[in-house]
């Protein structure tokens, strides 16, 4: 690195929300039981950090843009974090095209959701706590994004996990919410195990020359193929935990127990995409291990399929969105798996807009219906909530992959790249999932907004949400429409700006464009959207009654009983093992050597007791016998 470009404000970007979290947290902690402070104060404090971070993020973007394409990055090493032997980890931050892209939308959507939350959380007794956690989350996410090496990234990685736990179990008086939080944290930690091991292996393989992305990337060619595969797969285990992929996706639907802004920010737009970001970050490793890429792609697309199947039968509006998130994350992994890193990241980017929009819209609906989340109890809200309706429509179209909206471009790019990079199977499944996506999205949409009200009383009280909630919806809707045009492929007359922008951060091979393949991919995507949306319209467009699920539908509605399976195969045996240790293993087996030795002592004591007859004469006899034996022995040796 002959020319280290250094800026000093990079650290401020994550630091601002963190300071905000600290201040709000301390204020709330010391006042909440005695003299709660006003929501206005917390609101102002809460948005300050994110707003400053956003401004700094934009500044960073423009500074970066002003640099030549080669070596387009800033870095800042704040201090040496720890230095042990060859391991030298700095608390360093790196702004390169990839992280800045993430940085921009994370701060932007994060800030929006902070504003939205002021409206959504109004009246909650833990208003201050919520903003402390939200700020903490944003800070951690920014550390994750801006980290200059895997270890610092891991700080953010775990930090967002912690905040996710805290926010899922935010309504902690109810056991189920806390259990959902626990589940999220524990499942995430299982993934983290993979991350830590992968990171350690990576260090021992090529990390001694500096354990940050730039040095690693330089030394990546020294990696042995088998080692590269192992590292990539272990890191991907971490990604499956954080980004809810098979087999660790089970926590995300449960995570909807948290407040809706949390679901939008953490469990749709930002945190869950960290895994995709990580794979893209390590693109220089994954290109060396195509097998790992294939695993990633197939796990991703199968997750997409599975989640889409689940999504088609859910009745909780947030669960539908949750499964659609899992499904879209699957697409992203398929993208990065087929080595189309920029396409995957681009989908992360567009998805953040329309999924945050959908969640916030859902939150608006839920708020209006007094925390009713069952779509079979909604209906006809189009008239009551026009802003929400139109913005949600845009979100749904984008998610379903309607042409000319953002989701279409990014999804299509992934599917085209799958085809172009030689994964026709992934493409085929992807197209199928696209149709299913359109179906469940519009199923939800029609049930909520069209037809007639199914719950008259709730319907009567429903009204449009306040400005502080609808304005973010509108902004996000604009984003959901236009985000896709940032990376318009040549076939639509664009220049793929995002892909070019990211080229400096990613190691990616662009296949030679084949017009036929590209047209095929586009046609298939459009057809999938049309078919899915049409079926949904036919079934639900005019209103429908809640069906009784039978056969496969019931099986899918119950999520293939995967939770029950995990419970029976992992959780129960684990607890049973714990109980067994407590009841039998600990007292009788591991303590066995202690018990045995004390028993042995007792037995020996009992044995010697026989000799202790108590009669003096007998003791005298023992003595004489001893004397006699000694004499015999001595008379042998004498002479």
């Amino acid at each position, binding site marked *: 690195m002959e020319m280290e470009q250094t800026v000093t404000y990079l650290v401020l970007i994550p630091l601002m929300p963190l300071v905000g979290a600290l201040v709000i947290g301390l204020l709330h902690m010391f006042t909440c039981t005695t003299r709660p402070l006003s929501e206005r104060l917390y609101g102002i404090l809460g948005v300050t950090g994110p707003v400053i971070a956003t401004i700094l993020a934009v500044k960073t973007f423009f500074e970066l843009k002003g640099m030549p394409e080669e070596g387009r990055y800033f870095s800042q090493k704040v201090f040496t974090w720890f230095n042990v032997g060859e391991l030298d980890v700095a608390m360093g931050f790196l702004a390169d095209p990839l992280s800045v892209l993430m940085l921009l939308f994370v701060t932007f959507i994060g800030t929006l959701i902070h504003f939205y939350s002021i409206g959504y959380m109004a009246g909650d007794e833990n208003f201050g706590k919520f903003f402390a956690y939200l700020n903490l989350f944003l800070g951690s996410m920014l550390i994750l994004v801006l980290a200059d090496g895997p270890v610092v990234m891991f700080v953010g990685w775990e930090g967002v996990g912690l905040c996710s736990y805290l926010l899922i179990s935010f309504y902690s008086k109810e056991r189920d919410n806390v259990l959902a939080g626990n589940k999220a944290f524990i499942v995430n930690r299982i993934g983290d195990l993979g991350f830590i091991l992968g990171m350690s292996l990576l260090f021992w393989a090529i990390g001694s020359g500096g354990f940050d992305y730039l040095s690693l990337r330089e030394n990546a060619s020294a990696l042995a193929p088998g080692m590269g595969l192992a590292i990539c797969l272990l890191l991907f285990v971490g990604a499956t935990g954080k980004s809810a992929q098979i087999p660790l996706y089970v926590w995300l639907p449960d995570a909807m127990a948290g407040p809706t802004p949390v679901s939008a920010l953490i469990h749709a737009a930002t945190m869950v995409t960290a895994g995709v970001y990580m794979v893209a970050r390590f693109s220089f490793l994954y290109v060396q291990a195509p097998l790992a890429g294939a695993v990633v792609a197939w796990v991703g697309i199968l997750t997409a399929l599975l989640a889409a199947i689940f999504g088609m039968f859910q009745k909780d509006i947030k669960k539908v969105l949750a499964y659609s998130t899992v499904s879209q994350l699957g697409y992203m992994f398929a993208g990065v798996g087929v080595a189309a890193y920029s396409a995957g990241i681009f989908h992360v980017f567009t998805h953040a807009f329309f999924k945050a929009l959908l969640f916030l819209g859902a939150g608006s609906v839920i708020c209006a219906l007094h925390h009713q989340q069952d779509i079979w109890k909604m209906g006809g809200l189009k008239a009551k909530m026009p802003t929400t309706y139109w913005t949600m429509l845009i979100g749904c179209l984008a998610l379903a992959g309607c042409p000319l909206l953002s989701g279409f471009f990014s999804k299509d790019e992934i599917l085209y790249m799958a085809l172009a990079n030689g994964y026709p199977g992934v493409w085929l499944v992807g197209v199928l999932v696209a149709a299913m996506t359109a179906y469940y999205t519009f199923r939800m949409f029609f049930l909520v907004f069209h037809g007639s009200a199914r719950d008259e009383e709730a319907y009567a009280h429903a009204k449009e949400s306040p400005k502080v909630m609808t304005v973010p919806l509108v902004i996000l809707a604009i984003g959901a429409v236009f985000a896709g045009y940032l990376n318009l492929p040549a076939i639509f007359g664009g220049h793929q700006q995002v892909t070019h922008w990211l080229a400096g951060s990613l190691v990616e091979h662009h296949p030679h464009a084949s017009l036929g393949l590209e047209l095929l991919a586009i046609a298939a995507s459009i057809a999938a959207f049309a078919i899915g949306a049409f079926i949904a319209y036919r079934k639900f467009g005019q209103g429908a009654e809640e069906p009784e699920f039978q056969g496969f539908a019931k099986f899918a509605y119950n999520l293939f009983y995967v939770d029950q399976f995990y419970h029976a195969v992992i959780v129960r045996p684990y607890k049973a093992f714990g109980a067994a240790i407590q009841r039998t293993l600990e007292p009788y087996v591991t303590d066995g050597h202690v018990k045995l030795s004390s028993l042995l002592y007792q037995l020996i004591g009992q044995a010697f007791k026989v000799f202790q007859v108590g009669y003096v004469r007998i003791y005298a*006899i023992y003595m*004489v*016998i001893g*004397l*006699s*034996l000694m*004499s*015999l022995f*001595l*008379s042998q040796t*004498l002479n």
Partner: protein
Amino acid sequence: MIAELLFSVFAVLAIIGGLGLVLARHPMNGAICLVMTMISLAGLYSLLSAKLIFVLQLIVYAGAIMSLILFIIMFLNIRKEDLPKEEWRWAYYLGGIVVIAPVGLLMTKAVKALPGSEASIMGNGFGGVKEVGVVLFREWLLPFEIVSILLLVSLVGAVVLAGKRRVEQ
């Protein structure tokens, strides 16, 4: 010659006395036998030129200690039924001899290895009161004093133990 004869007589008497002690059923008989052994031993001491010990053996052992024992035996007025029934007595004798034999044999072996020496009577005051006294108070003063403390302790102890009845009353 006469000394050897005397030795033989005393030795036989001493052994007979010892055996009598061990074999006698009633302790009174045993005590009488023991007195006989002690007197024989006194004779042997005199043969070994231990004049003071000869006297002490007669006065202290055969006289004081043995009469104390006899006195107690008579004082307790032991009848036949007071004595423990020793059914397996002969078996114990036999076993005892078998067990003790190696001890005796070993010691005999050791003694045999000693340089032989005549046990003739020594003149020039060997074992006399004055000479033993000089050794006692010159070289053995501390043990002597300790023994005197021991005697005092046993005296007190005996009084406490035997006098317990009065406390009970």
